[in-house]
């Protein structure tokens, strides 16, 4: 059940200090280079929590690290028979209760998507699960969407209706507080003295902020239209080819994307008889992603490099899971120096459609 409270802004730091004693605390922190990144906080008085800028990173690396050891392996040789034994020793990550503070709606929705990929398929990914268990999310709605945001078009923001433990809305000198999942309810009860019950005025202020936010998006993005166009099976081959030619094979879009979960598994030898089996982020835009031993590649990198990425997010996941796996965070727009971001693709496909409609 959703219950509503108010947290005065000057109560925020004291609350976080309290939480920091019991949990690992992760929040968007502005560093001296001017980057705002989700960062583990060791001393709240020595960092600047930044709720003004969009965090450049999502929470993905906390649950699905860019490089992770899955297991160690070793070889033992039997000198008499000459035979070799080959054994694996799993390396499970530690599982630390963590509060993620200042999470935006798009990133929370992305966590729910990656939960589904790693935990709710027929196979259960124990590495992801260890990172993900014991996580508490304190999200914050976006009163003012950032410049490349289009979560309104992907229905993943700017405010959440579910998924959070606690959702904050900035209503001037205070935060409006909604408790969602059980851990949020429990957390609010445990530190009840930081909160007060919301009044009708507070509710009205929250409603006003949430409504106004919807009108503040810079970008008009036709996500649903493009999903419908792609579902018609008239493939926009020319657009795929044009954007594929501009892709520089850097993988930045996939790395920065909160819902890109593709990975590779490879071995790193430590010496002749020992090594680590690693899982590393991968990207379907890389030429080697689908290339098989022997050299055959079912994807033509020159013309189709970006095809799977856009079809997966805008069509295949709609077919499989009922919604796009693009959460509208817009990070890939700033990341891609070739302009091969999902917004560009959506714009090209929808413009193409409009031109067709105009031609008699």
């Amino acid at each position: 059940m959703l219950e509503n409270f108010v947290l005065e802004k000057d109560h925020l730091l004291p609350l976080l200090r309290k939480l920091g004693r019991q949990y690992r605390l992760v929040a968007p922190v502005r560093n001296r280079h001017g980057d705002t990144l989700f960062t583990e906080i060791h001393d709240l008085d020595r960092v600047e929590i930044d709720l003004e800028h969009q965090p450049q990173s999502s929470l993905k690396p906390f649950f699905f690290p860019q490089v992770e050891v899955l297991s160690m392996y070793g070889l033992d040789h039997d000198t008499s028979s000459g035979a070799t034994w080959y054994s694996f020793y799993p390396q499970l990550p530690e599982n630390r209760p963590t509060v993620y503070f200042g999470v935006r709606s798009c990133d929370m929705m992305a966590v729910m998507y990656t939960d589904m990929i790693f935990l709710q398929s027929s196979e259960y990914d124990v590495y992801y699960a260890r990172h993900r268990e014991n996580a508490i999310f304190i999200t914050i709605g976006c009163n003012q969407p950032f410049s490349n945001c289009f979560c309104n078009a992907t229905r993943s923001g700017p405010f959440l209706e579910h998924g959070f433990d606690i959702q904050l809305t900035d209503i001037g000198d205070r935060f409006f507080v909604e408790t969602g999942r059980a851990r949020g309810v429990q957390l609010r009860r445990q530190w009840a003295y930081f909160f007060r019950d919301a009044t009708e005025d507070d509710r009205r202020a929250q409603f006003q902020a949430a409504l106004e936010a919807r009108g503040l998006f810079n970008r008009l993005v036709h996500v649903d239209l493009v999903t419908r166009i792609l579902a018609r099976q008239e493939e926009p081959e020319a657009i795929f080819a044009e954007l594929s030619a501009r892709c520089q094979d850097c993988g930045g879009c996939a790395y920065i994307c909160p819902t890109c979960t593709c990975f590779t598994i490879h071995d790193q030898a430590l010496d002749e008889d020992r090594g680590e089996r690693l899982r590393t982020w991968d990207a379907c835009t890389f030429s080697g992603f689908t290339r098989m031993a022997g050299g055959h590649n079912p994807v033509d990198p020159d013309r189709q490099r970006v095809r799977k990425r856009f079809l997966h997010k805008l069509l295949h996941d709609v077919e499989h899971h009922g919604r796009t796996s693009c959460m509208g965070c817009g990070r890939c727009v700033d990341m891609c120096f070739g302009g091969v971001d999902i917004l560009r693709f959506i714009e090209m496909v929808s413009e193409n459609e409009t031109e067709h409609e105009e031609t008699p």
Partner: protein
Amino acid sequence: MILDPSRYVAPGMAGPQGSKPVRGNIYLPVPAQVREVHRENDLVTTFVLEFDDPLVNQEFSFEPGQFMMVSMPHCGEAPISFSSPPGRGGGFALTVRRAGRLTSAMHRLRPGDTIGVRGPYGRPFPMTELAGSSLLFVAGGIGLAPLRSVIDFCLDHRSDYGEITLLYGCRTPADICFADDLERWSRAGVRCLCTVDEADDSWSGRVGLVTELLQDVQVEADSWRALVCGPGIMIHFVLSRLLEMGLPRDHLFTTLERHMKCGVGICGHCFLEEKLICREGPVFSLAELDDTRNL
């Protein structure tokens, strides 16, 4: 919609839907020992394997068409299809063509060596659905390996299946795999027709593409099913020809090959349009494939 709160279960949450049983580590290979090594030709070798742990051996079962993820030291993993039938006890066989680093390392294995395996994975051939039908197998090169598992399964359950015909094509006579099996199958009443693209002095048999062998077989749409495996381009032409011969799409089956990393539908590598081949395949009926031009 799956991100609907009523269907969404956060990990580690208590409650009837939320409680997760303790589960194994899907990425952890199990040691298996090489018991036999059979060289099929210069590039292809069959390994008969058995788990180190006798309990695992006892409990392990698989179905024709499934595959294992094989680990070799310092080489990572690769998916390899079973080439032996299930239910015979005494381990399982994998047949491997030397193509990259991992498969080259496998070709240096000797009996007694240990490799890592996990699986079985993937959707198998629908052996129950195929019961009662006559079966036409069409294989190219090492594509015979997964079909060998099916053919031997059918011979182990001979009364369940009708006539069995195998059309086998290889690039040259030196590329032929399972020569002993071809003879054994012929003796067991399987009609085996072989062809090579390029003959040499040792070859007195047919020369030409495997599709040409289709002229020599009569298949009835109702009672026959076809199972095809080989290079993508061969699969495309054979399936097209079988359609022309009147077999309906849902009577045609193939098994596809892709680069894979996890084998369980997470890593994303083995996509074919919206499908993941490791989980939804590798066996497909043609009714499930829209386009076979780029397999």
